[in-house]
């Protein structure tokens, strides 16, 4: 209700905002405004997403036929390696934190910017330098180790650009660490008066937990890649048994980072969904505390389950047993979240705006992804499906069905705030539907392929797997269309779209209390928070929101 007051009082046309306050390339490349940095990140990761996606398309084309006939085996190996490297480190990890987190975190907590704006810009430049290494690798012939860089193949077997690739990842790790640190300090120090920890939106909680993982886990990856480079370059025996090393040591190091990294990828997605559901159900999140603590439960236990990637790698029976049990434990907080989101819908006032479609799709696909994770955590079953397409399908349900859906949902949700324009609703709904159908057609057959025993990373396969592979490839082409559509209509709407109100969704978050797009300093008057998050008016208490004195002070915020 307060938002309508804002919209009526100040027509958005006359406002100066972060987009039109200065023009020119320099004003963007030297900006310290978190919103502009968020947009810079958005542009760069979109580029990376489509490059990584292009590799995936080539892979699916190759897999149309059982004989390897489109590309050579070596090229195929490079394709899946580059697809993995780019998607994991250059898209999934930075996607929600660096784009949406950068853009909305300060807005959500009523701050003018992040704690260290210059470091924030530095993190983007580091990201760019890391990407340049990756471009170099792509152009100069690629790398064929798989994104997991298992030794001794990566140190003694492969004769491709392993060092350049690991350098790129090593460098981009610093970008992640800096972002994480920046967010942690921002959440601690920059919250608006009255915004206590338990008044924080759940997206802030999840960004905070993600940042903690980023800061704690990424250095382990850096050290691991450094050791790998040392062994490859100077033949110091660390991982290669021929030099006296232990190849499993690498896997322990690698997954000690990479499993928590999975949570770096999914926690922000869960955070976005925790925003979308209450907004579009107009209802307080069910079990706010449980969802918030579940976030930290995942972040903590997520550090203790890395060994479940090595159930068939020769770790001891009892180690495997321990990791299996812990893997089941880490599933509990995820289950808590799914149940609470579902319960939030109950007796809500649910609208089918595009972000909500993505959020509902997220819950369904994440549930399937999570439940199939239980299959993999079960030791006796993992033995059969380990390193098969079952695993591929499982983590794509989490990463693509979960994280990418959440990212697209978030982009649509905050698009009016980012661009000041509304996206075309009809096209957006169509794209969401195409993505959902294409996704399921691509990845569901892979569960069956996996149980049938098709190993991953095969460029030629046994003929009985063909029908399911053709289905999967067909799905991938639909999915590709679904991803290209938003690129087109979002770009179009940034120029021609309907002007957005300050709060088009009638949401409660602080970011909706300022104009769309926000002014450079976000809020002219620091907002004061007096109520819990998601305090939507309800049937029982329809006046709740406007009665709040805190909201009164918000209405006085001069917009522009």
């Amino acid at each position: 209700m307060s938002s309508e007051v804002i919209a009526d009082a100040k027509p958005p046309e006359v406002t100066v905002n972060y987009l039109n306050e200065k023009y020119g390339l320099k004003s963007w490349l030297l900006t310290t405004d978190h919103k502009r940095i968020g947009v810079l990140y958005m542009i760069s990761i979109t580029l990376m997403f489509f490059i990584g996606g292009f590799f995936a398309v080539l892979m699916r084309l190759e897999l149309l036929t059982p004989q390897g006939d489109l590309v050579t085996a070596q090229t195929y190996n490079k394709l899946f390696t580059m697809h993995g490297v780019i998607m994991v480190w250059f898209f999934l990890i930075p996607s929600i934190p660096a784009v949406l987190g950068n853009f909305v975190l300060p807005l959500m907590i009523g701050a003018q910017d992040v704690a260290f704006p210059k470091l924030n810009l530095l993190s983007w430049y580091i990201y760019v330098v890391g990407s340049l290494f990756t471009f170099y690798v792509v152009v100069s012939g690629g790398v064929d180790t798989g994104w997991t860089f298992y030794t001794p193949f990566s140190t003694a077997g492969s004769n491709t650009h392993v060092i350049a690739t690991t350098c790129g990842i090593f460098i981009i790790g610093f970008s992640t660490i800096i972002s994480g640190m920046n967010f942690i300090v921002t959440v601690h120090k920059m919250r608006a008066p009255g915004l206590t920890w338990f008044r924080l939106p759940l997206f802030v909680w999840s960004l905070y937990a993600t940042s903690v993982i980023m800061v704690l886990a990424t250095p382990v990856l850096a050290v691991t890649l450094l050791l790998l480079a040392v062994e490859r370059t100077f033949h110091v025996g660390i991982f290669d048994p021929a030099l006296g090393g232990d190849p499993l040591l690498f896997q322990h190091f690698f997954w000690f980072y990479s499993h928590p990294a999975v949570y770096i990828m999914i926690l922000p997605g869960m955070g976005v969904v925790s925003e979308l559901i209450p907004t579009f159900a107009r209802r307080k999140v069910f079990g706010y505390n449980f969802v918030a603590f579940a976030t930290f439960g995942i972040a903590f236990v997520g550090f203790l389950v890395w060994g479940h990637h090595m159930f068939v790698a020769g770790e001891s029976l009892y180690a495997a047993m321990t990791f299996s049990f812990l893997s089941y434990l880490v599933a509990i907080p995820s289950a808590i979240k799914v149940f609470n989101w579902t319960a939030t819908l109950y007796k809500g006032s649910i609208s089918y705006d595009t972000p909500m479609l993505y959020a509902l799709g997220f819950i369904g696909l994440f549930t399937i992804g999570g439940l199939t994770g239980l299959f993999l955590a079960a030791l006796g079953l993992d033995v059969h499906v380990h390193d098969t397409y079952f695993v591929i399908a499982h983590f794509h349900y989490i990463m693509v069905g979960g994280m990418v859906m959440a990212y697209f949902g978030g982009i649509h949700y905050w698009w009016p705030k980012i661009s000041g324009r509304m996206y075309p609703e009809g096209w957006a709904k169509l794209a969401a539907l195409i993505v959902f159908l294409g996704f399921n057609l691509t990845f569901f057959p892979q569960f069956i392929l996996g149980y049938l025993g098709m190993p991953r990373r095969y460029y030629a396969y046994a003929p009985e797997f063909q029908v399911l592979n053709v289905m999967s490839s067909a799905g991938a082409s639909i999915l590709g269309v679904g991803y290209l559509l938003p690129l087109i209509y979002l770009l179009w709407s940034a120029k021609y779209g309907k002007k957005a109100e300050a709060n088009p969704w009638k949401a409660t978050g602080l970011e909706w209390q300022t104009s769309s797009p926000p002014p450079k300093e976000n809020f002219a008057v620091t907002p004061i928070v007096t109520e819990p998050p998601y305090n939507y008016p309800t049937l029982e208490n329809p006046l709740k929101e406007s009665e709040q004195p805190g909201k009164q002070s918000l209405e006085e915020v001069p917009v522009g």
Partner: protein
Amino acid sequence: MSAIKMISNVSARRYRSNFATRLLLSVVTVFICATFSYSQPAPDKAALIRSAHIDQHLNQQVPLNLVFRDEQGHKVHLQDYFNGKPVILSLVYYQCPMLCTVVLNAMTESMSDLRFDIGKEFNVITVSFDPNEGPALAADKKELYVRRYGRAGAASGWHFLTGEESQIKQLAEAVGFNYAYDPSTGQYAHASGIMVLTPDGRLARYFYGIKYPPSDLRLGLVEASAGKIGSPVDQILLLCYHYDAATGKYTPIAIGFMRLGGAITLVGLVGFIVVMWRHDVKKKALTHSIVPLFLIPQLIPETASTEAHKVDIFFYLMVLVCGFVAVGVITLIIIFAVKYRRKSEDQLAIAAPQSMPLEITWIVIPLFIFIGMFVWGTDLYFSLARPPQNAIEVYVVGKQWMWKFQHPEGQREINQLHVPLGRPIKLTMASQDVIHDLYVPAFRIHTDVVPGRYTTTWFQATKPGTYHLFCSQYCGTLHSGMIGEVIVMQPDDYLRWLNQGGEGSLASQGQKLFRQLGCNACHTGDAEARCPSLIGLYGRTVYLQSGNTIIADDDYIRESIMDPQAKIVAGFQPIMPTFRDQLDQEQVLELISYIRSLGAQRQEVPPVSAPTGPQPAPVQGAIQQSESKGGK
């Protein structure tokens, strides 16, 4: 604003009318039962009996200001006994020859089984509906039943009341308890049942008959107290069990639904297997088929080992459980999304109460299910990891990009593994270069082949045929070409195949190598020799210089050949050179096989058919000779 009020009014009214329907239904049921069962006797008798029934007045307030007398004859109000606790109420008369005693006995029995105490978690009121009865009778009854119940403090929580006709009538009417005096026998006709009341005196639950299961009674009390007593377990039970007003019992609706869901899934699964089986049959007669069957993908993998069946059973169970949860969550989302869709722009949601019991439920139930999955999966894993003692041992070497197999009888194969049906086969695997992984989907076995150590797996084939063998750990350019097949043969065929030649047993090849490399120069077997004796080494505990001990297994022997300085046997000098650059993995395995043949602690396994098959390794030549020399 008024519109919103109206909506809430409407919904409240709908709620109430729903309740009224249920009540009406239950009353009608009782009435019909009474009518049918008692239609024979004389009209006045029938009318009398018909009047003896219970009408449910669920959720209605009982007047708590009614006045009765307690066992001492003091005037008391009903509300005196409603001190924040739920109350069990029974209407009887103390001189009743039959039914009332049965009711009281059943109550006492049930309450004795409850973990709640009378007077602590709940109170009990027994009221006589015979106005002629007085406190003395009540005191007698109280003494009897409190003694029978036997727990301390019961006397202050169980009250036997008597009262005047008007008060009794009001109470009976309020709770829907109908009775009638039969002047011909001087007795009352009445129904049997007890009621549970909430702490503020509303009727929560009715239990009929002459038996009140303690579990039902407990749930009734927990519900009546609105969760103030009882444990989280009760809350979970209440999710699964629902009070059925018509029968006065708690029925497991959730379990019913789950059974139904399970049955549907099971039917689906069976159907699916039948379809696949038919598909298999039809495939053989493809020419007769109209449908292009090659378009129907295979959906279940070949199952050809003892363990494969166990894995499949577990897998299908997981599909069942997880499928049920996934379908449940997705169905709920769809139902909610449709049912609570926003119909007008300003529609508000109904406030979300936070529910601790619900949260605990969906933490605890998954936890238990997960523990079940964990235990089952782990058990399976252990049986997959531990080969039976009588397994035939085959050595496997993986290298970019081929598989090499060495049978104990000396046969070598590349990318093909012949094995007999019905015998456990243990594979001991080594890698020449990078990590590989031996994967036979039909046997559900899958183990990394790691350079620098031996890994093992085993299987017992149950079906003759040819099965895929894949490398499933990415190992370089031709990873997807590192495939082969396992050929399962009838034991006779296997013997024939074994006899097709070979270079002598693996151990004898190892012996040849042992001499070629000059190992026997030092490892003479003598007690005074410079190097430890290898006789009987395999499987023995070795005492090391460092003070540690180790079991001499494949890994230890391999390490001692490749990196002799790593573990020095106590009492010996570190003088042995490494053979790392002179031997490949297959030769190391031959040497191990030879050392094994020099007397193993473990029982040796006979080949498939001991009498006719090639003998494994009766070769102790070199060392035996030197031994006899030393003996002189």
